[in-house]
Each structure stands twice: as structure tokens, then as C-alpha cells.
């Protein structure tokens, strides 16, 4: 039977902001679902609060709502759009939970909306730990022994039955949030309490540990006629105990005989049937005892997931696209497999003839207080996938794709004699365990010893051991030993030029020249989902060292777009959005577009986004090889963030044509000295600054510039170790203790602009004309990383004259830098003075947000400029300032890292962003808070405790809160300031002043809103428990007065109404 005709419109719920456990993969699957359903003729309605997604581009769905994903808001959208059906399986746990809420509150029934893809009962059965267990019992599948409890006393009792270690899994949480493994009573209590709190149903499962068992995942697709196929079997290199999202995983499964594999296959299908997933993709996880094959089911996800995105990329089978079609009534045999151009039906099981390895990417360095051991709660922020013909090759490619500065199994142990560290890192996995494994072999550990400590299957260990011994041979025999035969065999194993070069102590360039001279270059094989059994039309490729090359480059004029690599903090979906736009722009301009990227979560690595896709690490070697075979007209590397940008100089040196803004201009903007001169030449201001190389020089220059100062070491990127100092005593301490200033490690002093408003501007230039995309006013004051600050477009506190001056300045800089493409600038406005903080002639994190706000895709237009089409030729002359207000808010991972201080500062910590759109700033800000899961209270008790200089502002805020009906509580000084101005409030003790204090009140749920600003180390330390307990208790909090003001203005607006993006865009385009 073809598609259903009894439904006409379908609502799809997206996954919202990028958080740990929910990343770009849901943009990938959601976009596929929207496009597939739209092409089937359905009216698609989409809600997603994340503006940096391709799916929220106005052309993807018929009606798009960038609104908070809460059941109340979605109910409003349902009331307005009257969809016939709701597809809840494309937006991760967020969408499933929202759908369950809509069902529970009777919204679906009231408006006659049918859940398709997964029924309420199926979702419930899969997600409710107890029901799931019972279901598994019913079909004779074992699960780890476990007991479901809803309080700590019961948990303790359960634990005594199960023994240590014990696994704690909260119900209905994403990425295992709140869960963990307890080895002792203290840990057990800690994790249980956290888990009970994290679970929306206050339920946790106390579970028998199967630590060290092998872990497998099966990706299954089922249609409404009960046809089931397995898309991919994934084996986790890291055994049970490490969350699969944090594990290195390999596809296909490597260490199962057919007999065992078929047991897994049958069991996964049985699970889908029993749970009642009628149509679509699901993921089932198993643990297997390596000693006797005993099998237990761990869990299942009745929806597309991170693993299904990985499975899609790993096999070429587009799970989300097929799942969307199955949800509207198709059966598997009625659908074609796109990758073979319809030569095969969608009902076959992919077979692959290569090995896929996924390596997670962590950013613990951003959260020094976080526990960096890997457990059942996911902690990684991104991942990289690599394809090779052997495990060794794919593993080495994945490692060099992680963007952690390594080019293979680089040594990690600092002191070879430090066996304690080595042993600890082996037995208690952290972010880099795999490299410690290599180090263990270097130190002569046997496979058995490493296995005893890691429980990593010996099949994987031997591969690493072999790589280490090959490295040793290369090191001993040197560069001269690398004749054609030897070098080819090393390249076949996957060694990078960079690693071989460093082993031989030659430059990477030397090694590459040598390799090319010997005629050793990779070939490209196609990912075809059928192991070459059928001819394919799709150009989805990976490199390897074999005899036959299948890339068959065309003679067309081509453009290569370099993607962004793995997600990490500071580099996420925004850049993937820009890369996808660039690729589409290139196709639109008549070029063949070629994408290189290695992040399996992304839309850019969907094989039908570009004409050709090379799934490769973004290393110089891998990019140069694609350039060698494709011979493009040029390369766009300004859209993928730091990853491709780092290659600019080297690519240029290798003779590659860089499209758009030149690498020299990019460099000029980043080089402190050159940029300072550039601003002077253009008569633009920058906060007074100096570079100092001794404590004495620091003191001297500090007096000259004047306090307060922003101080940071010059060699550290991304705002790390950056501080604000207010006097010479603090400066001296910083110079002597925090950083060891010296001739080699200079320190940068910048004048800190107190009470300055920070502004972000995105613009596009074709080299002649500069088009201003939008001016964004930051909510947080200067000093908070721009990626972490909320911002509003248009600005609401800047005069027209200031805005015009900002326009003039960025235009001047864009022209001066010779920008062709995107440019972003940050300014600080203090009174009527404008200071340039930085200029980046490349894609910015805010580009997608601005594009959504002003109804024009800046990256698309910019990419066309880079390809030689002027703004005039594109017919883009002017961008109107929207009549509505858009607010971007950052989303933080603090809930995943208990104990980490959520205080914002110069170092970026957010993982994602949301957008709120409203008629007023207050409405837009309020929506952005809801979307960021910060529920603003409508009344109750507000707690205010601010530093002295904020007290006047705090009085205004307090008064306004009082008018809105809040009771006020404040600490001593703040209370006195409030009282002095006649604002009534109670006084409460600070934590250091004895009990009961403010944290007791938070824990007793007596506080509904927290306004807390601090400075100075003691005060920060004092208020630390206050902020962390606010996060644990989910109390709305702000750590800046600007944000407090914004909150107050949002509280003044009751609710807000939902707005269709397409309509807003029509209005703005008509302006």
C-alpha cells in the first residue's frame, strides 16, 4: 500500500539546543524527515528552538516555529496549525518527552492528532525501566538484575541485594543524565540522590553491574507490516561501564560468530515487536559476557538516535528518511534505496566492506572541576567517524580527525616511569584511554595485562599493539628505510604522514614529497551499502590504500567545502549550518560541490547535500589528497570554524586556491600586533592594551592603562586562564601565581571596559559592497565570552547614531581587510565610545541566528560572493531591521558536570543555543529562557545578593520584582541597600555566615529566582554552593545584572504567542 491519504499535515518536533547527549544528529534526521514527508506531498509543520539547524531554514518545512519545545507551546502550535499527525521520533528524547506530555495533558486527543512512528504505549514501554524489564522477561530475554525505586531508602535496600559495583539509571533522562556507577556507599548515595532528582518521574533503576562485558548496538528498522531489517551492528571497543556515546565504537561487529550475531539479530527484532514500535528506526543495546556468550538486553530507544545517525553514515542507509516514509504507511519493499539510485530496495540489509570507527570528543579542559572519568552518563560533546578498509586504518584516521592535536597514537604519558597514572588511566577510563593503551604497549605491558585492566577485547588490543611495534621499527630504522614497499605497507595500515614524519624526525612536508615521489597515493572507494554487489550512482567516498580508485572525478568546475570536524565547545552545529549553505550556494552557482568532513552527526555529511562527499579527517594530508584527485577551482575553508581555518596557510603554500578572504587577511585579524596597527591606520579604537614579559613591566603598564584589566596569557586560546583584576595586588598575584610570566610566555593586558555593552555584528562583503546582516546587543556585559552571552537583535539599548557608527566601522574594516565572504566583529560600547574587540573575517557562531532573524541566509550569500557573484548580481542590496525582536540564549552543560561552577566568564562553556522571537524584547527573552529550559517563575520568592557596584541596579530590579508580586530575600549588604531605598525584603545569611543560610533555603525549595553577582575570589568561592545548588534544584538564576534586568522585563510579559517563521520572513521582506 502506498502512503496514507487520510492524513494531510504532520507535525515534527525537533530536539532543541545542542546539549551533551543530543547534538547535530537530530538536525540530520529531522531535516531528512521534513524533506521526505514534504516530497510526499504532506504539509509539514516543524517546531524547534534551535536556530542553528538546517531543518529550521524556512524552505525545509511548510510552517516552521522557532519556539520553546514545551508541551504548552506545542499545544498552541497544534491549535493553530491543526496537524493530523505528530511524528515524535525525530527529535531525540526532547521530542519523545514532549509528545508524551501532550498526550498526558489530553492535547492530542482534543485536537485529534495521531501519534505516528511510535505510539504512546510503545514509548512508555521502552522508556519506563520497569515496564521494559517486564517486556524483556515476556520474550525470554535476560536483562541485568535490577530494582526500580523512587526513594533513597529503597535504593539502599536494593543495593544490598545486588552488591557493588552498582549501576544507577534514572528513568526518562537523556544521555544517562544523573546516572552513574557506584563502587562504594558514599558514591551510591551521591548518585542515587542526583538520579532521583534528574528523573522527571523521580525514579531510578538500581542495577546489577555487567562491567567489562562486551557491548553491542543493533540499529533496526521496522515497517507496519512487521518487516524488520537490521541496518548495522555496532561493537563498542570500550566495554560495558562506559556510556556508548563516550565509547569508541566500531561497525560492523567484529568478534561475533554468525551463530552469536543471529542471536543478537533475532533478539533485537523481538524487542521491537514486543515494545510495539510499529514503524521506524530503533536502537537496541546488548551486553555479552565474553567468557560464555551470555546475552543481556540493556535498553532500547524507540526513535532515531545518535547511533542511528552513525549507522546511516556508516552504511549509507538513510534511516531517518526511510523511517519518516514508513511512518506514513509505506512498507520497506515499496521504498528504494537511494544510494544505489533505486537499484536495490530499502528492504535489504546493508552489507559493508570496510570498517568504521567512531571516536568521541571530550572537553574536560573547559570544566576543571568536573569528574573526568567515563561512566554511564554521557560526557562527550562530539564525535568523529572514519572509514578504512581495516580496523587499524579506520582507527588511525579517526584519531587524527579528533582535532586534539594528535596524528595517531601519540604518546600521552608525561613521565614514562609514572605507572600509577598509567594503570589508573587504563582501569578507570578517561577521555584518552586509547592512547594510554598504546603507551602501555610501549612500556612493554602484555596484552593480557592491558586486557585485565581495560577489558577491551584482545582483537582490538592486538591491532594497537601492532601499530605501536610498527612505530618502534620506523623510529629505529629511520626515514631512509621508507622505500616504496615499506611506505606503502605503513600507509595501508593507516599511518598519517604527520605521524611517520614525527617518528622519523623529518617534516610532514618532506614525508609527503617523498611519498608522492614514490607514487604512493590513496585511492577512493565508495560507500554503497551493498559491498559492491550493485552499481551505485552516489559519490560518497573514503580514502584507502588499495589498487582500484572509484572516485571518477568529473571535468566540471568544482568547489570543495571543508567542514568543521567533531563538535566541541566553541565549534558546533553553527558551522555545519554554514558549510551546508556554502555547498548549496556552490551548486546554485553552477559548480559541482564537494564536501570533506568527518563528523557523522551532521547534515553536511548527508550524501545528498553535496554533489560529492569525502568522509575524511580534516587534516592537511587528507585534504590535499582530495584536492589532488579532484583539482577544484578553489576551496572554501572559512565556514567550518577553527578546524579548516588552521589549514589555510598550509593549503595556500601547497598551491591550493583559497576562495574568498585571503589567509593573510584572516591572519592579520588574528595577529595582535598587526591588528593593532590596522586599527590605528583606520582610526578605530580598541581598549588600551599591552603585552608584558615580566611582573615589573606588568605593573608599570597597568598603571598606564588603568584598572580594571583583563589579563590572560598570550599563548592560550579560547579565553582559558583569563581573569579580570581590579588593583595592583590582584595583578601581582596573577602574574606570580596564576601564570608564570616570562620572556617566552608573555601576558596580555587589556583595559576592562566596565559597564560596557558588547555588540556582535555579522556582515557579508563581495569585496566592493558590504551588507550588514544584523547588529546584536549582548545581554551579559563585556567580560563574558560572546558565545555564552545571550544577545538581542535588533539592539534595544543603542542609539541610531551608535548603530550607524558601528555600521561604518565594520564596513571600513571589511573593506580594509579585503573581506570576500562573511565577517563578524565584536565591539564594546561604553557611553558613546565604540571599541573594537575583535574582527573575524569568516563564519561566526551567530551567522545562522542572524539569518533566521533577518530572513536572509548570510552564509549562502557570502559563499556566492566567494564564488565571484557580487551582491548586486545576487540581487541582495539591503537587509531591513526586523520589527520583531529575536533573542539568542546559550545553553550550558552544567547539569552534566555536578560540582562545576556555572559562573560565566571569558572562557566559553556553552554547548548550544536557542532562539526566542517576540514582539518585544521581554517576550523574546522570556521565550529564549523557556527554550533553554530555564523556567522563569511567575511569583514566589526572589533572592538577591550582589556586589557593591551592582547595588543601585539591584534596587531597581528589586522594586520591579516586588511590583510583580515577588517576595524578596537578600544577604546583608544587599538587604540594607534595598531597605535604604524603601524596598521591603527579608535578610538571610551567606553560606560563610552560619546556618540557616541561603543554600538551606534553596534546598528547602523556598527560593524561586536567584540574582547573584560576585567578584573577587573569596566571594566567588562563597557563592559557589549557591549557584551549584540552584542548578541541582532547577531554580532560575542569573549571575549578571544585565541578565537580571532581562529576566525582569520578561517577567513583565505574560507568556507570549507562537509565530510562524515563514510569516515573519514575509513581513520583513515586504518592509
Amino acid at each position: 500500500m502506498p502512503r496514507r491519504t487520510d492524513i494531510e499535515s504532520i507535525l515534527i518536533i525537533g530536539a532543541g539546543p545542542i546539549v551533551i547527549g543530543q547534538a547535530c544528529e537530530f538536525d540530520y534526521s529531522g531535516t531528512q524527515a521534513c524533506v521526505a514527508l514534504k516530497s510526499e506531498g504532506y504539509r509539514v509543520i516543524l517546531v524547534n528552538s534551535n536556530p542553528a539547524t538546517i531543518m529550521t531554514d524556512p524552505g525545509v518545512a511548510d510552517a516552521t516555529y522557532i519556539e520553546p519545545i514545551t508541551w504548552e507551546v506545542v499545544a498552541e502550535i497544534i491549535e493553530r496549525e491543526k496537524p493530523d499527525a505528530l511524528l515524535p521520533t525525530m527529535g531525540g528524547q526532547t521530542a519523545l518527552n514532549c509528545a508524551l506530555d501532550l498526550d498526558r495533558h489530553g492535547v492530542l486527543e482534543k485536537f485529534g492528532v495521531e501519534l505516528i512512528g511510535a505510539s504512546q504505549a510503545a514509548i512508555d514501554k521502552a522508556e519506563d525501566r520497569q515496564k521494559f524489564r517486564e517486556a524483556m522477561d515476556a520474550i525470554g530475554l535476560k536483562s541485568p538484575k535490577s530494582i526500580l525505586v523512587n526513594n533513597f531508602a529503597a535504593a539502599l535496600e536494593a543495593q544490598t541485594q545486588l552488591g557493588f559495583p552498582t549501576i544507577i539509571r534514572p528513568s526518562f533522562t537523556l544521555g544517562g543524565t544523573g546516572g552513574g556507577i557506584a563502587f562504594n556507599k558514599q558514591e551510591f548515595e551521591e548518585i542515587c540522590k542526583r538520579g532521583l532528582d534528574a528523573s522527571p518521574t523521580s525514579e531510578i533503576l538500581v542495577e546489577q553491574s555487567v562491567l567489562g562485558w562486551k557491548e553491542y548496538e543493533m540499529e533496526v528498522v521496522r515497517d507496519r507490516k512487521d518487516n524488520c531489517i537490521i541496518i548495522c551492528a555496532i561493537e563498542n571497543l570500550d566495554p560495558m561501564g562506559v556510556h556508548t556515546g563516550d565509547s569508541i565504537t566500531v561497525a560492523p561487529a567484529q568478534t561475533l560468530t554468525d551463530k552469536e550475531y543471529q542471536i543478537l539479530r533475532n533478539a533485537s527484532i523481538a524487542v521491537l515487536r514486543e515494545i510495539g514500535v510499529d514503524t521506524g528506526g530503533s536502537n537496541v543495546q546488548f551486553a555479552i559476557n565474553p567468557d560464555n556468550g551470555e546475552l543481556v538486553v540493556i535498553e532500547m530507544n524507540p526513535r532515531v538516535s545518535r547511533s542511528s545517525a552513525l549507522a546511516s553514515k556508516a552504511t549509507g542507509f538513510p534511516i531517518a528518511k526511510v523511517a519518516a516514509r514508513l511512518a506514513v504507511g509505506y512498507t520497506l519493499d515499496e521504498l528504494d534505496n537511494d544510494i544505489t539510485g533505486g537499484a536495490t530496495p530499502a528492504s535489504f540489509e546493508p552489507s559493508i566492506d570496510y570498517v568504521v570507527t567512531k571516536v568521541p570528543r571530550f572537553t574536560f579542559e573547559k570544566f576543571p572541576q568536573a569528574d573526568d572519568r567515563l561512566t554511564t552518563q554521557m560526557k562527550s560533546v562530539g564525535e568523529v567517524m572514519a572509514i578504512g578498509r581495516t580496523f587499524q586504518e579506520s582507527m588511525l584516521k579517526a584519531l587524527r580527525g579528533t582535532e586534539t592535536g594528535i596524528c595517531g597514537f601519540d604518546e600521552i604519558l608525561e613521565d614514562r616511569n609514572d605507572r600509577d597514572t598509567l594503570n589508573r588511566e587504563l582501569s578507570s577510563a578517561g577521555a584518552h584511554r586509547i592512547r594510554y593503551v598504546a603507551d602501555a604497549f610501549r612500556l612493554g605491558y602484555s596484552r593480557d595485562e592491558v586486557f585485565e585492566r581495560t577489558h577491551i577485547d584482545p582483537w582490538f588490543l592486538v591491532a594497537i599493539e601492532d601499530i605501536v611495534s610498527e612505530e618502534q621499527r620506523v623510529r629505529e630504522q629511520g626515514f631512509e628505510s621508507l622505500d616504496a614497499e615499506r611506505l606503502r605497507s605503513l600507509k595501508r595500515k593507516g599511518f598519517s604522514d604527520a605521524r611517520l614524519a614525527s617518528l622519523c624526525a623529518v617534516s610532514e612536508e618532506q614525508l609527503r614529497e617523498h611519498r608522492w615521489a614514490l607514487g604512493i597515493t590513496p585511492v577512493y572507494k565508495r560507500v554503497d551499502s551493498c559491498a559492491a554487489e550493485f552499481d551505485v550512482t552516489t559519490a560518497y567516498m573514503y580514502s584507502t590504500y588499495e589498487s582500484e580508485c572509484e572516485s571518477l572525478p568529473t571535468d566540471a568546475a568544482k568547489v570543495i567545502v571543508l567542514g568543521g570536524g567533531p563538535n566541541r565547545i566553541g565549534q558546533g552545529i553553527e558551522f555545519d549550518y554554514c558549510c551546508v549553505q556554502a555547498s548549496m550556494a556552490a551548486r546554485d552557482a553552477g559548480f559541482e560541490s564537494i564536501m570533506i568532513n568527518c563528523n557523522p552527526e551532521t547534515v553536511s555529511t548527508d550524501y545528498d547535500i553535496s554533489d560529492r562527499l569525502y568522509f575524511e579527517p580534516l587534516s592537511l594530508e587528507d585534504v590535499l589528497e582530495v584536492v589532488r584527485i579532484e583539482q577544484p577551482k578553489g576551496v572554501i575553508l572559512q565556514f567550518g570554524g577553527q578546524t579548516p581555518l588552521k589549514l589555510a596557510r598550509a593549503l595556500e603554500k601547497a598551491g591550493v586556491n583559497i576562495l574568498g578572504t585571503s589567509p593573510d587577511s584572516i591572519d592579520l585579524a588574528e595577529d595582535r600586533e598587526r591588528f593593532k596597527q590596522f586599527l590605528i591606520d583606520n582610526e578605530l579604537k580598541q581598549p588600551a592594551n599591552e603585552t608584558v614579559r615580566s611582573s615589573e613591566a606588568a605593573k608599570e603598564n597597568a598603571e598606564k592603562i588603568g584598572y580594571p584589566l583583563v589579563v590572560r596569557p598570550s599563548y592560550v586560546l579560547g579565553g582559558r586562564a583569563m581573569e579580570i583584576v581590579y588593583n595592583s595586588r590582584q595583578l601581582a598575584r596573577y602574574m606570580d601565581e596564576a601564570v608564570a610570566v616570562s620572556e617566552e610566555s608573555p601576558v596580555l593586558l587589556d583595559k576592562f571596559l566596565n559597564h560596557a555593552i558588547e555588540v556582535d555584528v555579522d556582515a557579508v562583503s563581495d569585496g566592493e559592497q558590504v551588507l550588514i546582516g544584523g547588529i546584536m546587543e549582548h545581554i551579559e556585559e563585556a567580560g563574558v565570552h560572546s558565545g555564552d552571552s545571550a544577545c538581542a537583535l535588533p539592539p534595544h539599548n543603542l542609539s541610531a547614531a551608535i548603530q550607524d557608527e558601528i555600521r561604518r566601522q565594520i564596513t571600513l574594516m571589511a573593506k580594509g581587510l579585503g573581506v570576500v565572504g562573511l565577517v563578524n566583529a565584536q565591539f564594546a560600547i561604553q557611553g558613546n565610545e565604540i571599541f573594537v574587540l575583535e574582527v573575524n573575517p569568516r563564519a561566526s557562531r551567530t551567522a545562522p541566528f542572524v539569518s533566521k532573524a533577518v530572513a536572509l541566509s548570510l552564509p549562502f550569500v557570502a559563499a556566492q560572493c566567494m564564488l565571484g557573484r557580487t551582491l548586486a548580481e545576487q540581487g541582495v542590496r539591503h537587509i531591513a531591521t526586523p520589527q520583531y525582536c529575536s533573542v539568542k540564549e546559550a545553553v550550558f552543560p552544567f547539569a552534566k558536570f555536578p560540582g562545576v561552577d556555572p559562573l560565566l566568564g571569558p572562557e566559553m562553556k556553552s554547548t548550544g543555543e536557542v532562539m526566542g522571537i517576540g514582539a518585544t524584547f521581554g517576550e523574546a527573552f522570556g521565550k529564549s529562557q523557556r527554550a533553554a529550559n530555564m523556567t522563569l517563575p511567575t511569583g514566589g520568592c526572589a533572592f538577591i545578593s550582589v556586589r557593591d557596584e551592582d547595588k543601585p541596579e539591584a534596587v531597581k530590579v528589586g522594586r520591579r520584582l516586588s511590583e510583580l508580586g515577588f517576595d524578596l530575600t537578600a544577604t546583608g549588604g544587599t538587604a540594607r541597600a534595598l531597605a535604604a531605598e524603601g524596598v521591603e525584603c527579608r535578610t538571610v545569611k551567606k553560606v560563610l555566615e552560619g546556618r540557616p543560610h541561603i543554600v538551606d533555603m534553596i534546598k528547602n525549595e523556598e527560593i524561586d529566582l536567584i540574582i547573584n553577582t560576585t567578584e573577587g575570589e573569596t566571594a566567588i568561592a562563597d557563592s559557589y554552593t549557591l549557584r551549584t545548588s540552584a542548578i541541582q534544584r532547577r531554580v532560575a538564576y542569573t549571575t549578571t545584572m544585565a541578565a537580571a534586568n532581562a529576566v525582569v522585563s520578561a517577567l513583565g510579559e505574560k507568556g507570549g504567542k507562537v509565530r510562524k517563521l515563514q510569516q515573519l520572513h514575509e513581513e520583513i521582506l515586504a518592509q
Partner: protein
Amino acid sequence: MTQAAILVLEDGTVFRGTALGAAGTTVGEVVFNTAITGYQEILSDPSYARQIVTLTYPHIGNTGVTTVDAESRATFAAGLVIRDLPLLVSNWRSQMDLDTYLRNQEMVAIADIDTRALTRLIREKGAQSGCISTGSGLDVEDALAQARAFGGLQGLDLAKEVSTAEPYEWREGVWELESNSHPSPPANEFKVVAYDFGLKHNISRLLVERGCKLEIVPAQTPADVVLAREPDGVFLSNGPGDPEPCSYAIESIAQILENRTPMFGICLGHQLLALACGAKTTKMKFGHHGANHPVKDLASGAVLITSQNHGFAVDEESLPANVEATHRSLFDGTLQGIRLRDRAAFGFQGHPEASPGPHDIQNLFDEFIAAMRAEQETA
């Protein structure tokens, strides 16, 4: 120390790799199989007689070899072509590594070649005769001559070569994880005689598991000998080569059909059943060789993922009026299953016994049991 090896195809293509298994030279029809798991089952499947099997998954040998998983008394493939033999075996069931097994079985094999290039070549040109030669003094010309001298499988009756010499009884049931063995269930409900044209053990196991008292007889056993045993059902096994030359089997099957004994044929057995009904078989370009083939059950519309391994197929156009199509391949539309309208007899082209491959279509064995039961009840 690794030894060099070559694989030379009849079209002159030469692949250079390293030697595996036994030293020497072997010739056969070069085919590929895209199954990721189950190399041991494939190598010990008699259907691969005179075929050099290329396994498309690069790492072959990861889980070693265990006698428990053997599909027949020995290996039958003429040779093996793989990309990579792993450095280590890792599986609790393994008894020896693949290389040792190949040596014990005197199978010549080659590794470290671009198996994907080879697969694509076979896909484009159709199955090729080929020769693997290992050891010192590799002679491409000689290997090419040997490859060309191998005339292909068409017209070859290999069933009688691989079949058992003597009839025997089979008692083992299906494999069980807990004991890692094949416990024998009581088998007394149905008396089944299975023709061994290259029978896989798992077929016997699935029949025994369903209560059959199973006797396995040589390929050339005349029908009257079989019927004299008064079987409740007759099973026609899979096997290698071209079905057409197996005139003795076709004749026996026709006689058994006359006797109305329920009959079930798999792969070669299915083709022989079709031939006995008057249909025709044809040689396919490169056949079906994988464990991921979707087949449609024409009656229910269900899609079943099956294991497939055949180079010949029954021509659906040639089916006589009393034979209906029951299954079709969703890959190329070729006929996958037939049923006689006037007899309790049916056949399936793929491998419902799996091993290796999915178990989706094992219900065909239940249908065979049901057919025998229905026959008993009417009788």
C-alpha cells in the same frame, strides 16, 4: 614469513597478495559473498564446490573456527580470497585460527588483495574462472592457462561428487548457546528422507529439531529405494553446480511426486524440483551470494531477509500450469520460491536454514512439517 600469492582470472587480470592456508594451486569459478559473518559456514558449505569464494568483508578470521559451526564433513570451496587475516582470533568458541583450519583442510587461499576491485570486476563481467597460486616461482602465464582451462560450472553435475557415499541417520538438533553444542531432541514424529546433493548440517538440525527422524541418502539413490522406506516426507538438499545434468535426481523426484509424498527442496533441490515439473533453469550473470537478500512472500506480502548462494535460477516464464511462484527476489525480481498446486511439494531458492545468515524464513521448515502432518491426517 609471509609467502606471495597470485590470483589470475580468465580475462587476464592479475591480483598479487600473500598466501594463506595450504601451499599450491587451485582453480574454480571465482564468486563473491557479501555476508559479514559466517566464513566458516561458507567454506564448509558443499554448494561452493569448484568455486573460489571472495569474501567482501575485509577482516576474515576474527572469531577463528570451531567444529561446532561446520556445515559439512569438510570444506568444499575450491579456494578463498580475502583482504585481511586478523592478527588474533577473539571468541570464546574458537578452537583454532582460520589459517590453521585452511591448512588442515588443504585449502589454498590468498589475502591482502583489493577484494572490492575483484568484486566489482565480477559484477561487471560475470563470474570468472580463476586460479590462485601460492609459493615461490609464481607463474602468471601458467595460472592464466589453468584458469582458462577451467571450463566453468555450466553442465557440471557436482552433486554426486559431494554427496555422501552411504545413507546415514542424523540425530543432532540446532545449536544452543548455553551448552555451545547441538543437543538431540526426541525424533520420532515424522520419517524424513533427505537427498544429499551437498546437504548442509543445519538443514538436518532444523528438521530433527522439529521432530523428524532423519535419514540422509546419496544423491543417486533411486526413487523406489527412498519410497521403500515409506517416508512421511522427502527433502531435496542444496548443492553445487548446474542442476540440469542431474538427470538421475530429476527422474527420482518426478517419481516421488507421482507418489504424492510431501517434498521440500532448497536451492539446488528447489531447482531440481522445478526441472522435475518441467520448468527450465538458467545460468545467472553472477548469481546471488550474500546474507542480506530481501525476498517477498507473494501470498502474505511479507519481506524476509534471506541467505542466498546460487548461480543458477528457475526461469519463472517456464513454470508449468501446476506450479505457482511463491517468492520473488526484491533485488532483481528473480523467482525465489515455487509450490505445486496439485501436490504437497515446494521449493525455495535461498537458504532458510541460514547458517550463515538471518533466520527470517525458517518457517518454511514448519510448512514442510505441516504438509506432512496434513498428509498423515488425510491418510
